[in-house]
């Protein structure tokens, strides 16, 4: 066999990353790349990194369970503009609502940006100037999160995001900041990038809801100083056939607490990545999701990919992921706890569970541990199965109708994930919404 023939055969085997030529260029051509002001350098750097790394192909190990093509396609499939009612989930509470239409800030629809203890500007506005406090963070945590696995869509976001929020928390604001998404056009490629800096001892609750663009790519970079607290809860519109990617890059300082919870219901083709770097001693990070997927509502593929790095003493991390799947829905979980050498007394825990309600659904999981310190307590569990027949029989024998009994069991299955929502009132509200969705009462 000639040398050149050998070369040809080798190429697809090496990394499986052979991509259609120009896919990245086509993707970039559809985006209106901002030049940036204070973020110009970070954007230029991201663009060159992206050109070097390229977009993932279907044979990339990191994309083993999720086909990246919906995200690499030049443009998204159009979706009807959704003028439906806002989710009632956060309706009752006092909050500062900031509206984003297809990833761009809508000042007219939003509350006034002033809130005691918080300093908020928008990325587009801040980028009109050459300097900003967020300059040290914009793209920096994303860059740090590129090793050991590259996350090119986050890099794309850093280069292409036209808007977002730059939030600096210095106190304990009286109410949460609520990002409300709206879909303004049918074929929108919504790209937004938030930077959050929670100063020492400060606290913030960030809520996210609404209808995102037909295809979305959201990045949050969160930097938590000593003793800071960030509580992030997201619940986007249920039954919405969107295609989306989101990344949370967090750096958690000493004694700081990060809690992130996502509620996902039906319709979506979505990958959410949380990359958490615990750099200070006694840091706490909890990442959780409750996911309901019914393939009959629309194709459902939900991927949670979590990478938690313990780099300091006595860190506590929790990953709690619960997925209920039926009618051909696919749930994915890729989670990793990395304990660096010297990160002694780490307490890391990871649980990923799926409840498959019929034969057509799938759960694919890769829960990993990578540990280089000896005095640690790390464990993970992953289970997949059907409704427990004994429990069902018990409920039926107590007079609970079959359908209702299933709802009870599904809710109890999800309970551990909901526990990660600190606010009890909100937790109860989420539980009620889930109950409503499961019993097929009017959707919202």
């Amino acid at each position: 066999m000639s040398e050149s023939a050998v070369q040809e055969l080798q190429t697809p085997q090496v990394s499986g990353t052979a991509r259609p030529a120009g896919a990245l260029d086509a993707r970039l051509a559809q985006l209106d790349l901002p030049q940036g002001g204070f973020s110009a350098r970070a954007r230029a750097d991201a663009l060159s990194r992206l050109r070097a790394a390229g977009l993932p192909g279907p044979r990339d190990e990191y994309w083993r369970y999720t086909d990246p093509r919906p995200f690499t396609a030049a443009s998204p499939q159009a979706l009807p503009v959704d003028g439906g009612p806002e989710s009632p989930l956060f309706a009752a509470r006092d909050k500062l609502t900031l509206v984003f239409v297809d990833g761009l800030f809508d000042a007219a629809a939003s509350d006034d940006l002033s809130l005691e203890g918080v300093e908020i500007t928008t990325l587009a506005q801040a980028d009109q100037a050459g300097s900003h406090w967020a300059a040290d963070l914009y793209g920096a945590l994303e860059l740090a999160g590129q090793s050991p696995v590259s996350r090119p869509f986050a890099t794309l976001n850093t280069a292409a995001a036209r808007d977002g929020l730059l939030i600096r928390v210095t106190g304990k604001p009286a109410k949460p900041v609520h990002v409300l998404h709206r879909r303004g056009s049918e074929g929108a490629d919504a790209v937004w990038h938030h930077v959050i800096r929670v100063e020492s001892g400060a606290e913030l609750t960030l809520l996210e809801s609404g209808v995102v663009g037909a295809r979305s790519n959201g990045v949050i970079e969160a930097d938590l100083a000593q003793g800071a607290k960030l509580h992030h809860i997201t619940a986007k519109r249920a039954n919405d056939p969107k295609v989306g990617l989101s990344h949370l890059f967090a750096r958690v300082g000493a004694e700081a607490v990060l809690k992130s919870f996502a509620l996902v219901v039906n319709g979506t083709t979505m990958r959410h990545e949380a990359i958490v770097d615990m750099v200070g001693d006694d840091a706490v990070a909890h990442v959780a999701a409750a996911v309901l997927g019914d393939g009959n509502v629309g194709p459902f593929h939900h991927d949670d990919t979590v990478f938690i790095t313990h780099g300091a003493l006595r860190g506590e991390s929790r990953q709690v992921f619960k997925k209920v799947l039926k009618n051909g829905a696919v749930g994915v979980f890729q989670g990793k706890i990395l304990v660096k050498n010297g990160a002694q007394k780490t307490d890391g825990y990871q649980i990923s569970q799926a409840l498959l309600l019929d034969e057509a659904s799938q759960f694919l999981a890769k829960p990993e541990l990578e540990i280089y310190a000896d005095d640690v307590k790390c464990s993970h569990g992953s289970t997949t199965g059907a409704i427990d027949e004994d429990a069902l029989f018990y409920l039926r024998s107590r007079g609970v109708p079959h359908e209702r009994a299933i709802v009870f069991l599904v809710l109890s299955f999800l309970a551990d994930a909901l526990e990660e929502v600190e606010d009890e009132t909100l937790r109860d509200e989420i539980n009620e919404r889930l109950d409503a969705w499961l019993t097929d009462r009017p959707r919202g």
Partner: protein
Amino acid sequence: MTDITDLEVREGVDRETVETVQNMGSYKYGWNTEIEMDYAPKGVNEDIVRLISKKNDEPEWMTEWRLEAYRRWVTMTEPKWAMLNYPEIDYQDQYYYARPASMTEKPKSLDEVDPKLLATYEKLGIPLREQMILAGVEGAEDAPAEGRRVAVDAVFDSVSLGTTFKDELAKAGVIFCSISEAIREHPELVKRYLGSVVPQSDNYFATLNSAVFSDGSFVYIPPGVKCPMELSTYFRINAENTGQFERTLIIADKGSHVSYLEGCTAPKRDTNQLHAAVVELVILEDAEIKYSTVQNWFPGDEDGKGGIYNFVTKRADCRGDRAKVMWTQVETGSAITWKYPSCILRGNESQGEFYSIAIANNHQQADTGTKMIHLGKNTRSRIVSKGISAGHAQNTYRGLVTMHPRATNSRNYTQCDSLLIGDKCGAHTVPYIEVKNTSSRVEHEATTSKVDDDQLFYCRSRGMDEEEAVALVVNGFCREVLQALPMEFAMEAQALVAISLEGSVG
């Protein structure tokens, strides 16, 4: 080894544990047998493949089969996904065939074998003489006579020296011989099954093996036969710069049963040596194979110099309904271990089990685990993996459990625990779980911890020194796997666990 009779053995402490802790020497099997060898020229190419085939008197179809594998191998690249770090292997800087010069004319019986070779196995504690003996345990010559008999196939570098108890096995219809003999004597069986579980194109190392394998063991158990004794192969790498590529094929026909043991050692050398084996198990209806390995290749010295690179493909195919396979492995040797004994559960109600202890000390690196591929209905699998890391070692469990849509009502239970001794080592878990039907249940649990201070304190307060206490705790940690081993191996394994961890405490 010191005489242990005059040693005071405290109640509750295994004699073996104390004995091995006492004998904190270095790698026991690191000596070399001075013997004249015939080598094929260094490197691998089509001529070498033909030469190996010719040396084994193989028929034309076998030579072609090897060449086909070789031609594919040159188009492949070495897999790099494992968490292993080793310098680039120069595949042309190895001998692919080495055989003791005295074996040029195949000896007709063990009486004709070079006494130096026989002495080698005696020194290793491997019974080549047909005698009532407890295999694997040193000093077992004095063991009570009711010990189980074990038939042994001894492979020295590239060739099989001989197989014991052949006649008695033949009476039961069992074929147990070297694979080179099987290719000549039982071509119909070999043709039918060789490469049917691990195809030539399976992976880089298996493909290389398919091209250059020199010898190995072949077992056929006819329908309904329970093999009258345990079968065992003992692999010894002796020659320098020589790769060992053995190939094992075991076929358990309908309703048969066999227990197979495998052991391996190599001399201490400064250079790394390559070992790439392939093991194929075919299990038909209602048959059962129990395959146990104690892998104790030379692990390299304390500074990570030398040691065997162990790249092994082992796979069992449960083709018939209710077929059963059980892999048990104790991996204590090798500088690099890349090994994933797998089970394809094709038959309905078939079962696969995997029990593993992987110990990595000093600069050893192990990336090992299993694959359970559930294809048939009501299939069951169980994985129990215990990884122990000490010194500067890295130990990774990598496994796959997949439930095919048609594999309804199947079950898997996985438990992988890691134990870290010292703060310079690493323990990693990389499981893949794919569930594609709802009536199956998959459970996976993993923990990572260190030797519990309370347990150590308790042992110390009972008068044990630290080494003894750690050995006891570690033996407890491995208990579930040790219990799954055949008795002789369990004892050897228990001793090995202590030996491998020497110097890792304090």
